[in-house]
């Protein structure tokens, strides 16, 4: 038992060890050595990320409360890659005055939320799932309010906390109704104990999906998103928009495909409607944004709508596509946020019009931003094209050609506002563009990784085929 505990939960345990290590080191090292804690964390987390790729069959613990399979590990690996990049990008922000004295707290809280996501993904039971979700979301409010000397950041923290509490309420109510309907909290038992959808199940599902839709900021549960994203520090915003969102998308996929496949008649149309609303509203609101963070916030709402296209039919292709899409989305969105972060740290500018004429002074940052935006909008040869195309394939496979059409029209709308940023950087004249920016090596290497990923993860099919092979085994 002890041995299997160590081996099956090794990713969780590894992460917790790193988190505690940060906590202890932070207590004991001197003020001048605090930066070293960051480096140690980075190295350890890098090793942790790489170690996740070792093939491992997984297993079940606690009588089915916790289970892990190669697919779950793959999901965690994808999140790990994202978190590693976020860590790299946070370096320049963490040494800023008024942040630097609590920088290791940031690392600790960040890793704690990640461990929550791990448990959420690996849950075999609604209770474990709920605990994981809470571990993942409560510390996030702290992250949002991390720049507490700025009123906007404080506001973001409160807004996130309140909305998160509300959505958790919905979710918990849904779960309790499930218990009433099925008499069990275990996923495996659940799919056996209820085979026919009843009104109670429909109600429970409604509450559960609303709760998750809050977390995934699907329209009409998206109102908190833009304000929280705008108010939070840039690093935290990028963390919210990719990692937090990605993990909830994974969980939604697992729940729908593994726990509720019998009720596909109940949720399929809901997903369909949510997808259309989310893509459309997200895109339409993104059109008019002036602030780069709000802009990326609405664009990420729209992207969440696209993720839903992969959830319409319960087959392995759908889940592979979601994992693949999230990976590409992490890379592309983090590249965009990385550039915004570099500019924000160096100059404090966060408006799109500040980017006018950026190409003259910062050609490489502009090019990275352009690639990232093209990837987000799904233009070949960058990876975003492939992930979007496969999502459309998944939706078409389920027979939803109209939805595919609506989605592709939405990518056209999205292309418009992505091109506005490209236009600002490359075309708009500006007598006083931002000065040349030299970011630190951490951020540069993070951007380098994202660019390589954006280029290669699509064109090189082994990435997708590897995921498909793993998910097929599940």
């Amino acid at each position, binding site marked *: 038992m002890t041995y299997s505990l160590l081996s099956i939960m090794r990713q969780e345990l590894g992460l917790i060890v790193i988190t505690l290590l940060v906590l202890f080191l932070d207590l004991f090292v001197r003020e001048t050595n605090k930066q070293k804690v960051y480096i140690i964390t980075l190295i350890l987390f890098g090793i942790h990320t790489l170690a996740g790729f070792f093939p491992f069959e997984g297993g079940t613990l606690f009588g089915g409360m916790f289970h892990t399979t190669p697919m779950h590990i793959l999901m965690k690996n994808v999140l790990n890659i994202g978190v590693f990049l976020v860590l790299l990008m946070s370096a320049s922000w963490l040494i800023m005055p008024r942040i630097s004295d609590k920088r290791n707290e940031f690392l600790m809280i960040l890793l704690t939320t990640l461990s929550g996501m791990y448990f959420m993904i690996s849950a075999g039971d609604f209770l474990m799932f709920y605990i994981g979700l809470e571990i993942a979301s409560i510390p996030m409010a702290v992250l949002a309010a991390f720049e507490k000397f700025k009123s906007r950041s404080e506001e973001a923290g409160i807004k996130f906390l309140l909305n998160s509490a509300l959505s958790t309420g919905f979710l918990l109510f849904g779960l309790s109704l499930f218990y009433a309907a099925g008499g069990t909290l275990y996923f495996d038992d659940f799919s056996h104990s209820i085979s026919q959808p009843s009104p109670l199940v429909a109600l429970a599902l409604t509450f559960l999906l609303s709760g998750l839709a809050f977390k995934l900021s699907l329209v009409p549960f998206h109102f908190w998103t833009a304000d929280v994203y705008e108010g939070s520090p840039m690093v935290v915003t990028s963390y919210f928009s990719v990692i937090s969102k990605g993990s909830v998308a994974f969980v939604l996929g697992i729940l729908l495909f593994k726990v509720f496949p019998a009720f596909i008649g109940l949720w399929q149309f809901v997903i369909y409607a949510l997808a259309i609303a989310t893509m459309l509203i997200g895109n339409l609101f993104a059109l008019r944004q002036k602030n780069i963070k709000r802009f990326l916030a609405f664009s990420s709402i729209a992207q969440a709508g696209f993720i839903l296209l992969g959830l319409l039919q319960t087959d392995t292709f759908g889940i592979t596509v979601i994992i693949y899409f999230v990976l590409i989305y992490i890379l592309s969105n983090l590249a965009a946020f990385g550039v915004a972060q570099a500019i924000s740290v160096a100059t404090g500018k966060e408006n799109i019009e500040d980017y006018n004429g950026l190409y003259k002074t910062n050609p490489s940052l502009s090019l990275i931003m352009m690639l990232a935006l*093209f990837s987000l909008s799904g*233009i*070949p*040869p960058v990876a975003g*094209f492939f992930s979007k*195309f*496969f999502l*459309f*394939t998944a939706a*078409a*496979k389920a027979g939803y*050609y109209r939805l*595919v*059409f609506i989605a*592709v*029209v939405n*990518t*056209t709308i999205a*292309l*418009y506002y992505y*091109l506005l940023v*490209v*236009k600002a950087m*490359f*075309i708009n004249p500006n007598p006083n563009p931002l000065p040349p920016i030299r970011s630190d090596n951490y951020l540069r290497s993070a951007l380098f990784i994202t660019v390589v990923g954006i280029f290669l993860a699509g064109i090189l*099919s082994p990435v*997708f*085929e590897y995921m*498909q*092979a793993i998910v097929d085994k599940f």
Partner: protein
Amino acid sequence: MSFLMLFVLVPLLTVIAILFSKNIRQTRWIAALGMSLQLILSAVLVVMYLQIRAAGIADDFVMVKNLSWFPSLNFNLTLGVDGISVSLIALTSIVIFAGVFASWQMESLHREFFISLIVLASGVFGFFITIDLFAMFVFYELAVIPMYLLIGIWGTGPKEYSAMKLTLMLMAGSALIIVGLLGIYFHSAPEGGQLTMNLLEISRYKIPENVQNFLFPFLFVGFGILGALFPLHTWSPDGHASAPTAVSMLHAGVLMKLGSYGVFRIALFLLPQAAHNQGALFLILATIGIVYGALGAIMQKDLKYINAYSSVSHCALILFGLLMFNRSAIDGAILQMISHGIMTALFFALIGMIYGRTHTRMIHEMGGLLKVMPLLGAAYIIGGLASLGLPGFSGFVAEMLVFFGAFSHADTFHRIATVLAASSIVITAVYILRVVGIFLMGPIKDEHHRHLTDATWWEKLSVGTLLLFITLIGMFPSFVTETLIGNSLAPALERLMSNF
């Protein structure tokens, strides 16, 4: 490693080489070198293709090579060409070759300009060498996007508006195409069979008629937007007028043909029954496009707009010919693709060169330019004559074949459409001769124009290449219509005719 791969690799290597160039001299020479190599390659390809055919191989596509890409979905990079794609590859390399020399003096951000231009071209080449729908679509999209930067950064006039309009309209076209392609993919095999994106394999299976009817409009309109299908052609005049010279050349010359080729190769070839059911509607649109484009050209005062509307008219004629479903009209339509491609590239090159000297494109502000720059002027007149379908030039044969094929339909509907479309010949003559008369002939209106110089060596090379091919095709049209594409029309015709 297939020979066809070189058509994508050479541009790619050229782009990489340009990244390391230090000044404009190096940049343009690398670009010129790469594109000359491309021109030689396509000459080799034509010879190889003819040899294969001469050896008696009658496959629909030759030099087929299957490179696995996404095996779990069976999306592959399947290479293969037939006579039609070979001739379009040749067209592309001619136009891009001329385009590089036409933009010899592109000073601002020269590296970025040539890189975008060549990426654009490589997308086009890739589209023509593949026969897997997924790979074709990847290349198609690749060709659409550098346009935004090329027009937005180096364009003239309302460039931002035009660039955005063009990009978004073409992307909306892709939206339709994606639905169509996915629909075909999921109906590409009988129940339980291996789904495929391979053109050849799909063509062996008969897609159910109701599915065809559903998908056809998506694909026809989707590709039609790029092929200037009325009323979705509006991106074209603005886009072409604002684009820098080489981009207008490549876009009007080749990219619009990508649309027509897509219509022919995918919409008509794979969905023949639906083409019959719905052809009439699109035929009406094409006819309107022909006449409307020609009338539009009469009303314009800007040289580029005149030529852009004339392109709309000529590209609509391609669609018109394709929708006639008989050999002579389709033969003519494909010849028209090649002939119009070179012709319009010539026009845009000349307009760019003239604009570079006079700094105006308004025909009423110029006059008597033939005296000042006899070479460019004469070339413009020759291009004009080819465009209005004077015998001896390529345009004449193409139009003849199209109208001949069209008129062989005996019913009133086709007859009326043909008569209307044929009226465009007269209108074309009006606007070409009017323009030539106003800005090339007559007294010199602007004293500054008296001291302008004639073509430089690179301009001569650019214009000369295009003129050479216009004349060659005009003299030996049967080389294209019979020798090159003769064999390749059969499979499509067979599928289209079998329903009668």
